[in-house]
Protein backbone atom coordinates (compact mmCIF):
# COMPACT_ATOMS: atom_id res chain seq x y z
CA UNK A 1 0.00 0.00 0.00
CA UNK A 2 2.54 2.49 1.18
CA UNK A 3 4.84 1.43 -1.59
CA UNK A 4 2.13 1.99 -4.16
CA UNK A 5 1.26 5.44 -2.93
CA UNK A 6 4.81 6.62 -2.71
CA UNK A 7 5.64 5.19 -6.09
CA UNK A 8 2.65 6.88 -7.67
CA UNK A 9 3.73 10.21 -6.27
CA UNK A 10 7.11 10.34 -7.89
CA UNK A 11 7.35 8.78 -11.30
CA UNK A 12 10.66 9.49 -12.98
CA UNK A 13 11.01 9.37 -16.72
CA UNK A 14 14.38 8.92 -18.33
CA UNK A 15 14.60 9.85 -21.97
CA UNK A 16 17.04 8.15 -24.27
CA UNK A 17 17.47 9.29 -27.78
CA UNK A 18 18.79 6.52 -29.96
CA UNK A 19 19.22 8.15 -33.33
CA UNK A 20 15.93 9.63 -34.53
CA UNK A 21 15.44 13.03 -36.02
CA UNK A 22 15.06 14.98 -32.75
CA UNK A 23 11.41 15.64 -33.43
CA UNK A 24 10.03 13.22 -30.86
CA UNK A 25 12.76 14.12 -28.47
CA UNK A 26 12.03 17.79 -28.39
CA UNK A 27 8.33 17.17 -28.20
CA UNK A 28 8.84 15.18 -25.03
CA UNK A 29 11.38 17.35 -23.27
CA UNK A 30 10.25 20.75 -24.38
CA UNK A 31 6.54 20.39 -24.97
CA UNK A 32 5.29 17.75 -22.56
CA UNK A 33 7.57 18.93 -19.79
CA UNK A 34 7.07 22.60 -20.59
CA UNK A 35 4.64 24.69 -18.55
CA UNK A 36 2.10 24.54 -21.35
CA UNK A 37 1.36 20.82 -21.21
CA UNK A 38 3.07 20.34 -17.87
CA UNK A 39 3.32 16.65 -17.18
CA UNK A 40 4.73 17.43 -13.75
CA UNK A 41 1.18 18.11 -12.56
CA UNK A 42 0.72 14.31 -12.67
CA UNK A 43 3.86 13.98 -10.56
CA UNK A 44 5.90 12.71 -13.46
CA UNK A 45 9.41 14.10 -13.39
CA UNK A 46 12.24 14.02 -15.91
CA UNK A 47 15.52 12.54 -14.78
CA UNK A 48 18.82 11.73 -16.43
CA UNK A 49 19.92 9.13 -13.96
CA UNK A 50 18.95 5.54 -14.77
CA UNK A 51 19.22 4.54 -11.11
CA UNK A 52 16.28 6.72 -10.18
CA UNK A 53 14.15 6.20 -13.28
CA UNK A 54 10.88 4.26 -13.45
CA UNK A 55 9.91 4.76 -17.06
CA UNK A 56 12.41 4.61 -19.87
CA UNK A 57 11.19 6.61 -22.85
CA UNK A 58 13.02 5.78 -26.06
CA UNK A 59 12.77 7.88 -29.21
CA UNK A 60 14.21 7.16 -32.61
CA UNK A 61 15.32 3.98 -34.36
CA UNK A 62 18.11 2.18 -32.52
CA UNK A 63 21.41 2.61 -34.29
CA UNK A 64 24.05 -0.10 -33.97
CA UNK A 65 26.23 2.36 -32.11
CA UNK A 66 23.61 3.03 -29.44
CA UNK A 67 22.48 -0.57 -29.02
CA UNK A 68 24.95 -1.55 -26.25
CA UNK A 69 24.38 1.77 -24.50
CA UNK A 70 20.63 1.28 -24.52
CA UNK A 71 20.97 -2.23 -23.11
CA UNK A 72 23.22 -0.95 -20.38
CA UNK A 73 20.82 1.83 -19.44
CA UNK A 74 17.96 -0.64 -19.35
CA UNK A 75 19.91 -2.93 -17.06
CA UNK A 76 20.77 -0.06 -14.75
CA UNK A 77 17.14 0.87 -14.09
CA UNK A 78 15.85 -0.85 -10.95
CA UNK A 79 12.69 -2.97 -11.04
CA UNK A 80 9.82 -2.33 -11.53
CA UNK A 81 10.34 -0.52 -14.80
CA UNK A 82 8.42 0.26 -17.95
CA UNK A 83 9.69 1.03 -21.41
CA UNK A 84 7.81 3.35 -23.74
CA UNK A 85 8.67 3.54 -27.42
CA UNK A 86 7.73 7.01 -28.62
CA UNK A 87 7.25 7.77 -32.32
CA UNK A 88 7.05 5.56 -35.35
CA UNK A 89 10.82 5.33 -35.54
CA UNK A 90 11.03 3.74 -32.12
CA UNK A 91 8.11 1.43 -32.78
CA UNK A 92 9.28 -0.17 -35.99
CA UNK A 93 12.15 1.84 -37.40
CA UNK A 94 9.94 4.29 -39.30
CA UNK A 95 11.36 5.45 -42.59
CA UNK A 96 14.75 4.02 -41.73
CA UNK A 97 13.53 0.45 -41.42
CA UNK A 98 13.68 0.01 -45.13
CA UNK A 99 17.13 1.49 -45.52
CA UNK A 100 18.56 -1.30 -47.66
CA UNK A 101 15.35 -1.50 -49.67
CA UNK A 102 14.87 -4.87 -51.34
CA UNK A 103 18.52 -5.66 -50.83
CA UNK A 104 18.17 -6.36 -47.13
CA UNK A 105 18.64 -4.65 -43.84
CA UNK A 106 20.83 -1.73 -43.06
CA UNK A 107 24.36 -1.56 -41.74
CA UNK A 108 23.59 1.24 -39.34
CA UNK A 109 20.14 0.67 -37.93
CA UNK A 110 19.01 -2.23 -35.77
CA UNK A 111 15.35 -1.25 -36.08
CA UNK A 112 12.62 -0.65 -33.55
CA UNK A 113 13.30 -0.57 -29.84
CA UNK A 114 11.50 -3.89 -29.29
CA UNK A 115 14.35 -5.63 -31.11
CA UNK A 116 16.71 -4.58 -28.36
CA UNK A 117 14.78 -4.37 -25.10
CA UNK A 118 11.21 -5.39 -24.14
CA UNK A 119 8.71 -2.59 -24.74
CA UNK A 120 5.54 -2.05 -22.67
CA UNK A 121 3.93 0.92 -24.39
CA UNK A 122 3.95 2.21 -27.94
CA UNK A 123 2.98 5.78 -28.76
CA UNK A 124 2.60 6.18 -32.51
CA UNK A 125 2.98 9.36 -34.52
CA UNK A 126 5.67 11.26 -36.32
CA UNK A 127 6.01 12.87 -33.88
CA UNK A 128 3.16 11.99 -31.50
CA UNK A 129 1.10 14.96 -30.36
CA UNK A 130 1.89 16.09 -26.83
CA UNK A 131 -1.71 15.31 -25.86
CA UNK A 132 -1.22 11.71 -26.91
CA UNK A 133 1.97 11.42 -24.91
CA UNK A 134 0.24 12.86 -21.87
CA UNK A 135 -2.61 10.44 -22.17
CA UNK A 136 -0.29 7.50 -22.65
CA UNK A 137 1.77 8.38 -19.61
CA UNK A 138 -1.28 8.89 -17.46
CA UNK A 139 -2.68 5.52 -18.48
CA UNK A 140 0.62 3.78 -17.92
CA UNK A 141 1.21 5.07 -14.40
CA UNK A 142 -1.32 2.70 -12.73
CA UNK A 143 0.46 -0.22 -14.40
CA UNK A 144 3.66 0.82 -12.76
CA UNK A 145 2.02 1.17 -9.38
CA UNK A 146 0.69 -2.39 -9.57
CA UNK A 147 3.97 -3.92 -10.65
CA UNK A 148 6.04 -5.55 -7.95
Amino acid at each position, binding site marked *: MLKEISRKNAIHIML*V*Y*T*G*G*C*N*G*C*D*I*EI*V*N*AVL*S*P*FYDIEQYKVILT*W*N*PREADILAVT*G*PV*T*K*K*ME*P*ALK*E*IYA*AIPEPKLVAAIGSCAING*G*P*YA*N*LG*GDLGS*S*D*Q*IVGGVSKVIPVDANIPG*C*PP*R*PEDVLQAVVSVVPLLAKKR
Partner: protein
Amino acid sequence: MADVDRKDRAEVEVPLGMVHSALLEPFRIRLFVDDEVVVDAEITYDTAHRGIERMMEGMPVQKGLILTERICGICSHIHIWNGTRMVERGLGIEVPQRAHHIRVIGNEMERLHSHLLYLGHAFEILGHETFSMRCFMFREPVQNMLFFLSGNRVHYTIPVIGGIRPRCDIDKDKKQTLLAMLKSLDEELKAFGNRVINDTLIVSRIKDIGYLSKEDAIKYGALGPNMRASGVNFDWRIKVPEYKDNFDFEVIVREGGTVLDRVACRLFECLESIKIIKQALETLPDEEPINVGYELGRMGYSTSYNEAARGEIYDSCSLDDLGRIQSYINRTPSMSSLSAMEVSCIGDHLTDATITIVSCDPCLTCTNRVTVVDENKDKEYILEPEDIRRLARRKI
Protein backbone atom coordinates in the same frame (compact mmCIF):
# COMPACT_ATOMS: atom_id res chain seq x y z
CA MET B 1 49.74 11.18 -31.64
CA ALA B 2 47.64 14.11 -30.70
CA ASP B 3 45.94 12.09 -28.02
CA VAL B 4 49.12 11.51 -26.05
CA ASP B 5 49.99 15.21 -26.16
CA ARG B 6 46.65 16.16 -24.75
CA LYS B 7 46.90 13.72 -21.92
CA ASP B 8 50.34 15.05 -21.07
CA ARG B 9 49.06 18.53 -20.72
CA ALA B 10 45.90 17.71 -18.90
CA GLU B 11 45.44 16.44 -15.39
CA VAL B 12 42.00 14.99 -15.74
CA GLU B 13 39.78 14.02 -18.58
CA VAL B 14 36.10 14.79 -18.10
CA PRO B 15 33.85 12.94 -20.47
CA LEU B 16 30.32 14.23 -20.99
CA GLY B 17 27.95 11.85 -22.76
CA MET B 18 26.82 9.76 -24.64
CA VAL B 19 23.69 10.18 -22.60
CA HIS B 20 23.98 13.32 -20.56
CA SER B 21 21.66 15.91 -19.15
CA ALA B 22 23.41 18.84 -20.76
CA LEU B 23 23.55 17.35 -24.20
CA LEU B 24 20.18 15.82 -24.97
CA GLU B 25 21.52 14.24 -28.12
CA PRO B 26 23.95 11.37 -27.91
CA PHE B 27 27.39 12.62 -28.58
CA ARG B 28 30.42 12.64 -26.43
CA ILE B 29 32.67 15.51 -25.63
CA ARG B 30 35.90 14.86 -23.83
CA LEU B 31 37.23 17.85 -21.98
CA PHE B 32 40.87 17.74 -21.01
CA VAL B 33 41.15 19.66 -17.82
CA ASP B 34 44.10 21.17 -16.04
CA ASP B 35 43.27 22.59 -12.63
CA GLU B 36 39.64 23.16 -13.59
CA VAL B 37 40.60 24.96 -16.79
CA VAL B 38 39.81 23.29 -20.08
CA VAL B 39 42.96 22.89 -22.15
CA ASP B 40 41.52 20.86 -24.96
CA ALA B 41 38.23 19.44 -26.14
CA GLU B 42 37.32 16.63 -28.44
CA ILE B 43 33.95 15.72 -29.84
CA THR B 44 32.89 12.29 -30.97
CA TYR B 45 29.64 12.15 -32.82
CA ASP B 46 28.65 9.16 -34.83
CA THR B 47 25.91 7.62 -32.79
CA ALA B 48 22.94 8.82 -34.77
CA HIS B 49 24.14 7.96 -38.25
CA ARG B 50 21.22 6.59 -40.19
CA GLY B 51 22.25 6.88 -43.84
CA ILE B 52 19.49 9.05 -45.26
CA GLU B 53 21.44 10.00 -48.36
CA ARG B 54 22.04 6.38 -49.16
CA MET B 55 18.35 5.69 -48.73
CA MET B 56 17.42 8.43 -51.16
CA GLU B 57 19.53 7.02 -53.94
CA GLY B 58 17.21 5.94 -56.76
CA MET B 59 14.04 7.21 -55.07
CA PRO B 60 11.51 9.22 -57.08
CA VAL B 61 12.35 12.82 -56.32
CA GLN B 62 8.99 13.77 -54.83
CA LYS B 63 9.27 10.92 -52.36
CA GLY B 64 12.91 11.59 -51.61
CA LEU B 65 12.29 15.22 -50.78
CA ILE B 66 9.82 14.27 -48.06
CA LEU B 67 12.52 12.12 -46.56
CA THR B 68 14.90 15.09 -46.35
CA GLU B 69 12.56 16.52 -43.78
CA ARG B 70 13.28 13.56 -41.50
CA ILE B 71 16.91 14.60 -41.32
CA CYS B 72 16.11 16.89 -38.44
CA GLY B 73 13.10 17.51 -36.28
CA ILE B 74 14.07 21.06 -35.37
CA CYS B 75 14.82 22.53 -38.77
CA SER B 76 12.67 20.26 -40.89
CA HIS B 77 11.21 22.91 -43.20
CA ILE B 78 14.48 24.28 -44.46
CA HIS B 79 15.66 20.84 -45.58
CA ILE B 80 12.65 20.19 -47.75
CA TRP B 81 12.53 23.78 -48.98
CA ASN B 82 16.16 23.79 -49.97
CA GLY B 83 15.83 20.42 -51.66
CA THR B 84 12.75 21.53 -53.58
CA ARG B 85 14.42 24.78 -54.49
CA MET B 86 17.41 22.91 -55.85
CA VAL B 87 15.23 20.74 -58.10
CA GLU B 88 13.23 23.76 -59.26
CA ARG B 89 16.42 25.62 -60.12
CA GLY B 90 17.85 22.62 -61.94
CA LEU B 91 14.76 21.99 -64.05
CA GLY B 92 13.76 25.64 -64.46
CA ILE B 93 10.33 25.23 -62.87
CA GLU B 94 8.38 28.42 -62.26
CA VAL B 95 7.08 28.92 -58.75
CA PRO B 96 4.26 31.37 -57.96
CA GLN B 97 5.21 34.26 -55.70
CA ARG B 98 2.52 33.27 -53.20
CA ALA B 99 4.26 29.95 -52.66
CA HIS B 100 7.56 31.72 -52.07
CA HIS B 101 5.94 33.89 -49.44
CA ILE B 102 4.45 30.94 -47.59
CA ARG B 103 7.73 29.05 -47.72
CA VAL B 104 9.47 32.07 -46.20
CA ILE B 105 6.80 32.21 -43.48
CA GLY B 106 7.45 28.56 -42.70
CA ASN B 107 11.17 29.11 -42.49
CA GLU B 108 10.94 32.15 -40.25
CA MET B 109 8.52 30.40 -37.88
CA GLU B 110 10.98 27.57 -37.73
CA ARG B 111 13.79 29.98 -36.92
CA LEU B 112 11.65 31.42 -34.15
CA HIS B 113 10.93 28.08 -32.54
CA SER B 114 14.49 26.88 -32.97
CA HIS B 115 15.94 30.00 -31.36
CA LEU B 116 13.43 29.91 -28.53
CA LEU B 117 14.29 26.29 -27.92
CA TYR B 118 17.93 27.26 -27.85
CA LEU B 119 17.32 30.05 -25.36
CA GLY B 120 15.25 27.80 -23.14
CA HIS B 121 17.90 25.15 -23.20
CA ALA B 122 20.70 27.64 -22.50
CA PHE B 123 18.90 29.08 -19.48
CA GLU B 124 18.18 25.61 -18.20
CA ILE B 125 21.87 24.75 -18.30
CA LEU B 126 22.60 28.02 -16.52
CA GLY B 127 20.21 26.87 -13.83
CA HIS B 128 17.76 29.69 -14.37
CA GLU B 129 14.64 27.58 -14.43
CA THR B 130 12.21 30.52 -14.59
CA PHE B 131 13.62 32.01 -17.77
CA SER B 132 13.93 28.60 -19.30
CA MET B 133 10.27 27.83 -18.68
CA ARG B 134 9.30 31.24 -20.00
CA CYS B 135 11.10 30.45 -23.25
CA PHE B 136 9.35 27.12 -23.58
CA MET B 137 6.10 28.91 -22.91
CA PHE B 138 6.86 31.36 -25.74
CA ARG B 139 7.67 28.47 -27.98
CA GLU B 140 4.21 26.92 -27.66
CA PRO B 141 2.37 29.70 -29.53
CA VAL B 142 4.91 29.38 -32.33
CA GLN B 143 4.34 25.64 -32.48
CA ASN B 144 0.61 26.35 -32.48
CA MET B 145 1.04 28.73 -35.38
CA LEU B 146 2.92 26.07 -37.31
CA PHE B 147 0.27 23.53 -36.44
CA PHE B 148 -2.38 25.95 -37.56
CA LEU B 149 -0.55 26.68 -40.78
CA SER B 150 0.27 23.14 -41.80
CA GLY B 151 -1.32 20.51 -39.57
CA ASN B 152 1.77 19.14 -37.86
CA ARG B 153 3.88 20.48 -35.05
CA VAL B 154 7.22 19.20 -36.26
CA HIS B 155 7.20 17.89 -39.80
CA TYR B 156 5.14 20.41 -41.71
CA THR B 157 6.00 19.38 -45.29
CA ILE B 158 4.96 22.72 -46.73
CA PRO B 159 6.82 22.85 -50.05
CA VAL B 160 6.25 20.52 -52.96
CA ILE B 161 7.88 20.86 -56.36
CA GLY B 162 6.23 23.80 -58.11
CA GLY B 163 4.77 25.49 -55.05
CA ILE B 164 3.27 24.53 -51.73
CA ARG B 165 0.82 21.92 -50.60
CA PRO B 166 -2.74 23.28 -50.81
CA ARG B 167 -3.43 22.38 -47.16
CA CYS B 168 -0.74 24.92 -46.14
CA ASP B 169 -2.30 27.74 -48.12
CA ILE B 170 -3.20 30.80 -46.10
CA ASP B 171 -6.73 32.08 -46.53
CA LYS B 172 -8.16 35.26 -45.08
CA ASP B 173 -9.19 33.85 -41.71
CA LYS B 174 -5.93 32.05 -41.25
CA LYS B 175 -4.10 35.26 -42.03
CA GLN B 176 -6.00 37.26 -39.43
CA THR B 177 -5.45 34.64 -36.75
CA LEU B 178 -1.76 34.34 -37.53
CA LEU B 179 -1.32 38.12 -37.42
CA ALA B 180 -3.07 38.32 -34.07
CA MET B 181 -0.93 35.51 -32.66
CA LEU B 182 2.21 37.22 -33.94
CA LYS B 183 1.30 40.54 -32.43
CA SER B 184 1.02 39.21 -28.90
CA LEU B 185 4.16 37.14 -29.33
CA ASP B 186 6.06 40.18 -30.53
CA GLU B 187 5.11 42.28 -27.52
CA GLU B 188 5.84 39.56 -24.99
CA LEU B 189 9.12 38.65 -26.60
CA LYS B 190 10.31 42.25 -26.63
CA ALA B 191 9.59 42.61 -22.93
CA PHE B 192 11.29 39.32 -22.20
CA GLY B 193 14.32 40.26 -24.31
CA ASN B 194 14.76 43.48 -22.38
CA ARG B 195 14.50 41.59 -19.15
CA VAL B 196 17.19 39.10 -20.18
CA ILE B 197 19.67 41.62 -21.51
CA ASN B 198 19.33 43.74 -18.35
CA ASP B 199 19.42 40.87 -15.89
CA THR B 200 22.63 41.17 -13.92
CA LEU B 201 22.52 37.57 -12.78
CA ILE B 202 22.33 36.11 -16.26
CA VAL B 203 24.69 38.61 -17.83
CA SER B 204 27.40 38.21 -15.21
CA ARG B 205 27.23 34.47 -15.72
CA ILE B 206 27.55 34.46 -19.50
CA LYS B 207 29.68 37.45 -20.36
CA ASP B 208 33.36 36.89 -21.12
CA ILE B 209 33.11 33.15 -21.44
CA GLY B 210 33.25 30.89 -24.47
CA TYR B 211 35.17 33.41 -26.50
CA LEU B 212 35.42 32.76 -30.24
CA SER B 213 37.43 35.37 -32.12
CA LYS B 214 36.56 36.52 -35.62
CA GLU B 215 39.67 34.84 -37.02
CA ASP B 216 38.82 31.55 -35.33
CA ALA B 217 35.22 31.77 -36.47
CA ILE B 218 36.40 32.05 -40.06
CA LYS B 219 39.19 29.51 -39.67
CA TYR B 220 37.05 26.79 -38.12
CA GLY B 221 34.02 27.62 -40.22
CA ALA B 222 31.45 28.68 -37.67
CA LEU B 223 28.17 29.45 -39.39
CA GLY B 224 24.92 31.26 -38.81
CA PRO B 225 24.37 33.11 -35.53
CA ASN B 226 27.61 31.69 -34.09
CA MET B 227 29.54 33.38 -36.86
CA ARG B 228 27.54 36.59 -36.73
CA ALA B 229 28.04 36.83 -32.96
CA SER B 230 31.78 36.85 -33.63
CA GLY B 231 31.55 39.81 -35.99
CA VAL B 232 31.37 38.15 -39.40
CA ASN B 233 28.68 39.86 -41.41
CA PHE B 234 27.09 37.25 -43.60
CA ASP B 235 23.66 35.78 -43.95
CA TRP B 236 22.36 33.82 -46.94
CA ARG B 237 19.08 35.65 -46.62
CA ILE B 238 20.63 38.76 -48.15
CA LYS B 239 21.53 36.72 -51.22
CA VAL B 240 18.57 34.39 -51.70
CA PRO B 241 16.10 36.16 -54.02
CA GLU B 242 13.03 34.94 -52.10
CA TYR B 243 14.14 37.06 -49.17
CA LYS B 244 16.19 39.76 -50.81
CA ASP B 245 13.59 40.98 -53.29
CA ASN B 246 10.58 40.99 -51.03
CA PHE B 247 11.41 41.68 -47.44
CA ASP B 248 13.05 44.29 -45.41
CA PHE B 249 15.05 43.11 -42.40
CA GLU B 250 18.32 43.54 -40.60
CA VAL B 251 21.15 41.08 -40.24
CA ILE B 252 22.14 40.98 -36.59
CA VAL B 253 25.90 41.17 -36.17
CA ARG B 254 27.67 41.44 -32.83
CA GLU B 255 31.36 41.91 -32.25
CA GLY B 256 31.91 40.21 -28.89
CA GLY B 257 32.11 36.52 -29.74
CA THR B 258 31.17 35.40 -26.22
CA VAL B 259 28.24 33.35 -24.98
CA LEU B 260 26.38 36.57 -24.20
CA ASP B 261 26.68 37.69 -27.81
CA ARG B 262 25.48 34.38 -29.13
CA VAL B 263 22.45 34.49 -26.86
CA ALA B 264 21.70 38.15 -27.68
CA CYS B 265 22.19 37.56 -31.40
CA ARG B 266 19.51 34.90 -31.38
CA LEU B 267 17.16 36.98 -29.28
CA PHE B 268 17.31 39.84 -31.76
CA GLU B 269 17.00 37.47 -34.69
CA CYS B 270 13.70 36.29 -33.26
CA LEU B 271 12.36 39.83 -33.49
CA GLU B 272 13.61 40.14 -37.09
CA SER B 273 11.85 36.89 -37.93
CA ILE B 274 8.57 38.21 -36.59
CA LYS B 275 9.08 41.28 -38.77
CA ILE B 276 9.58 39.14 -41.87
CA ILE B 277 6.53 36.96 -41.15
CA LYS B 278 4.39 40.06 -40.70
CA GLN B 279 5.55 41.53 -43.99
CA ALA B 280 4.99 38.23 -45.78
CA LEU B 281 1.48 37.87 -44.42
CA GLU B 282 0.56 41.42 -45.30
CA THR B 283 1.92 41.34 -48.84
CA LEU B 284 0.68 37.85 -49.71
CA PRO B 285 -0.14 37.94 -53.44
CA ASP B 286 -3.49 36.65 -54.56
CA GLU B 287 -2.89 33.71 -56.91
CA GLU B 288 -2.76 29.92 -57.15
CA PRO B 289 -0.10 28.68 -54.73
CA ILE B 290 1.10 25.85 -56.94
CA ASN B 291 2.23 25.42 -60.50
CA VAL B 292 1.49 21.90 -61.67
CA GLY B 293 2.53 22.30 -65.29
CA TYR B 294 6.03 20.92 -65.09
CA GLU B 295 7.73 17.78 -66.26
CA LEU B 296 10.36 15.87 -64.40
CA GLY B 297 13.25 14.46 -66.33
CA ARG B 298 16.98 14.33 -66.52
CA MET B 299 18.60 17.04 -64.50
CA GLY B 300 22.29 17.74 -64.33
CA TYR B 301 24.05 18.59 -61.14
CA SER B 302 22.15 21.34 -59.34
CA THR B 303 22.80 23.11 -56.07
CA SER B 304 21.04 25.39 -53.65
CA TYR B 305 22.13 27.35 -50.62
CA ASN B 306 19.92 28.84 -47.97
CA GLU B 307 19.96 30.10 -44.40
CA ALA B 308 18.69 27.67 -41.80
CA ALA B 309 18.24 28.59 -38.17
CA ARG B 310 21.78 27.44 -37.46
CA GLY B 311 23.45 28.78 -40.60
CA GLU B 312 24.19 27.87 -44.15
CA ILE B 313 22.62 24.76 -45.62
CA TYR B 314 23.64 23.26 -48.93
CA ASP B 315 21.90 20.64 -51.03
CA SER B 316 22.84 19.17 -54.35
CA CYS B 317 21.88 16.21 -56.50
CA SER B 318 21.13 15.16 -60.04
CA LEU B 319 18.17 13.28 -61.50
CA ASP B 320 18.09 10.47 -64.03
CA ASP B 321 15.69 10.18 -67.00
CA LEU B 322 12.79 9.06 -64.86
CA GLY B 323 13.30 11.76 -62.26
CA ARG B 324 15.01 9.57 -59.68
CA ILE B 325 17.55 10.97 -57.28
CA GLN B 326 21.22 10.37 -57.86
CA SER B 327 23.98 11.23 -55.39
CA TYR B 328 22.14 13.49 -53.03
CA ILE B 329 24.42 15.65 -50.92
CA ASN B 330 23.23 17.68 -47.99
CA ARG B 331 25.56 19.71 -45.83
CA THR B 332 24.22 21.16 -42.64
CA PRO B 333 25.59 24.03 -40.55
CA SER B 334 26.28 22.10 -37.35
CA MET B 335 28.84 20.11 -39.29
CA SER B 336 31.30 22.96 -39.31
CA SER B 337 30.06 24.83 -36.25
CA LEU B 338 31.14 21.89 -34.11
CA SER B 339 34.85 22.52 -34.52
CA ALA B 340 34.30 26.15 -33.59
CA MET B 341 32.50 24.88 -30.51
CA GLU B 342 35.53 22.79 -29.53
CA VAL B 343 37.76 25.82 -29.82
CA SER B 344 35.54 28.15 -27.83
CA CYS B 345 35.54 25.76 -24.84
CA ILE B 346 39.29 26.02 -24.45
CA GLY B 347 40.66 28.32 -21.78
CA ASP B 348 37.50 28.44 -19.72
CA HIS B 349 36.52 27.04 -16.41
CA LEU B 350 35.15 23.52 -16.48
CA THR B 351 31.74 24.62 -15.24
CA ASP B 352 31.48 27.07 -18.12
CA ALA B 353 32.10 24.43 -20.71
CA THR B 354 28.55 23.09 -20.82
CA ILE B 355 27.00 26.48 -21.39
CA THR B 356 29.57 27.19 -24.07
CA ILE B 357 28.68 23.97 -25.81
CA VAL B 358 24.99 24.70 -25.59
CA SER B 359 25.48 28.30 -26.71
CA CYS B 360 26.91 27.03 -29.98
CA ASP B 361 23.64 25.21 -30.55
CA PRO B 362 24.85 21.81 -31.64
CA CYS B 363 22.34 19.75 -33.55
CA LEU B 364 23.70 16.32 -34.09
CA THR B 365 20.98 14.51 -35.90
CA CYS B 366 21.78 16.21 -39.17
CA THR B 367 25.50 16.17 -38.69
CA ASN B 368 25.58 12.48 -38.10
CA ARG B 369 24.05 11.83 -41.43
CA VAL B 370 27.32 12.19 -43.22
CA THR B 371 29.67 10.61 -40.75
CA VAL B 372 31.19 7.28 -41.63
CA VAL B 373 30.67 4.84 -38.81
CA ASP B 374 33.66 2.66 -38.18
CA GLU B 375 32.39 0.21 -35.66
CA ASN B 376 35.64 -1.61 -35.03
CA LYS B 377 37.58 1.44 -34.05
CA ASP B 378 35.68 3.11 -31.31
CA LYS B 379 33.91 0.60 -29.16
CA GLU B 380 33.91 2.55 -25.93
CA TYR B 381 30.90 4.42 -24.71
CA ILE B 382 30.44 6.22 -21.48
CA LEU B 383 27.34 6.38 -19.37
CA GLU B 384 27.95 8.92 -16.70
CA PRO B 385 24.89 11.01 -16.24
CA GLU B 386 26.29 13.18 -13.48
CA ASP B 387 24.04 16.07 -12.92
CA ILE B 388 25.87 18.95 -14.50
CA ARG B 389 22.96 21.21 -13.84
CA ARG B 390 23.63 20.94 -10.14
CA LEU B 391 27.22 21.95 -10.80
CA ALA B 392 26.09 24.91 -12.79
CA ARG B 393 23.74 26.02 -10.07
CA ARG B 394 26.48 25.98 -7.51
CA LYS B 395 28.47 28.32 -9.67
CA ILE B 396 25.71 30.89 -9.57
